[in-house]
């Protein structure tokens, strides 16, 4: 469903994505981990073309992402993206934040959009906050709204870029719970995260990146209990002991 073919990306001289080859089938939950600067955020940001690639191809549902002829609006409507810093629109209520894309991209009527939006807000457990502004919400609540904003377009794929890294520890759980529920609904998910508990619980596959390359991949149990490479082993020991 998502396919990377010989993908390369440079920031000037820095080779941030080095010959990435990857296939993510429908319904898979993929966790990507690795040290800072390994290229993991860049990798998922290329999927919905927030970043461009210089070489190779990325194909989502048979559509080449980085092709000039591709209808980006249509493509992005099928991909939901959740940011580390949430990036909710501060000048709109929670409900309007979620309704914005359905009304303006899918051209839905306001009533219909409102119905779906409230349903998604209920799914993340925040119906009572629909009239509030983002500034009135906690970090965890804001991130859950961001997830609802991603879900409201009924995407086939959800991408998460370190969704809990900017949250206070007590709020990480509520966001991870929402994400776990998504898994049980069969959503295709790519999650860049350091939350290894989440990975062990729901991931189908774990990808370890370093220096722009995919160093190792495997099922969670294989990866955490039996890392094949030294780098992976080193990384795992560091994050588990801190």
């Amino acid at each position, binding site marked *: 469903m998502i396919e990377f073919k010989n993908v390369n990306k440079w920031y000037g001289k820095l080779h941030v994505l080095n010959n990435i080859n990857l296939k993510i089938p429908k319904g898979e939950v993929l966790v990507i981990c690795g040290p800072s600067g390994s290229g993991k955020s860049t990798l998922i940001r290329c999927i*919905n073309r*927030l970043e461009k690639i210089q070489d190779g191809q990325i194909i989502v549902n048979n559509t080449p992402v980085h092709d000039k002829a591709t209808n*980006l*609006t*249509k*493509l*992005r*409507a099928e*991909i*939901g*993206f959740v*940011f580390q*810093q949430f*990036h*909710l*629109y*501060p*000048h709109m209520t929670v409900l309007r934040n979620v309704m*914005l*894309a359905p009304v*303006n*991209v899918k051209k839905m009527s306001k009533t219909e959009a409102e119905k779906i939006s409230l349903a998604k807000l209920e799914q993340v457990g925040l119906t009572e906050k629909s009239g509030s502004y983002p500034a009135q919400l906690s970090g965890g609540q804001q991130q859950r709204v*961001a997830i609802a*904003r991603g879900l409201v*377009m009924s995407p086939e794929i959800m991408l998460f870029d370190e969704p809990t890294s900017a949250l206070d520890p007590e709020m990480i759980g509520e966001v991870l719970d929402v994400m776990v529920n998504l898994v049980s609904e069969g959503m295709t998910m790519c999650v860049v995260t350091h939350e290894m508990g989440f990975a062990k619980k729901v991931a189908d596959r774990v990808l370890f990146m370093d220096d722009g390359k995919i160093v190792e991949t495997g099922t969670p149990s294989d990866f955490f209990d039996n890392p094949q490479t030294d780098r992976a082993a080193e990384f795992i020991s560091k994050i588990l002991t801190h």
Partner: protein
Amino acid sequence: MMSFYFGRLVEIYPFFLKGLWMTSKIAFISLVSCTLIGFILGIFRSSNSLILKRVVGVYVAFVRGTPFVVQIFIIFFILPEWGIQLDAFAAALLAMAIMGSAFICEIVAGGINSISRGQWEAATSSGLTLIQQLRLVIIPQAMKVILPPLVGQYVLLIKDTSVVSVIGVMELTRVGWVTVVRIPEGLMVFSLVGILYFSISYPLILLSNYLERKMSM
């Protein structure tokens, strides 16, 4: 002597009000045109296109680097040489539009650039087009940063209308200039002119201060 002139001044007062009316007309039309053009230019100036940025940048540099009176002379004296005949009023409006839009362009670009990249990325990821992103997400937020200096710029533009008096437009300053020939009481005449300008500028200055306080909360 002073009271003789004062009496004549009272007689001629309607003339001043006509001048004030002309100033208001020029100011209003200019504020509207400069705001419209300035917003569009400001969006270009803060865009990702290097060409647009540079071209608008050159235009802004020329306007900001030369005195307004020189720009007016250029427009009024030089356009006829190129076959464009404009009367003083039209030339004045054109000069104001060119000058004001350059300054508003910088204010708008500053506002747009102050919006974090994350907002652009979130809007892009939802599939919104560039125009939708600007209209729904970026510009509403940028307005907080834009509005106080924009109103301040409006005050400056109202005052700049006085310079178009040099090409003979019968606005408030020129009324004073013409009057002082016949009523040689410079202090009285231009005090009156000043008071009339004050009456339209000062409320806007208060508004600008108020907005500045409100937006920084």
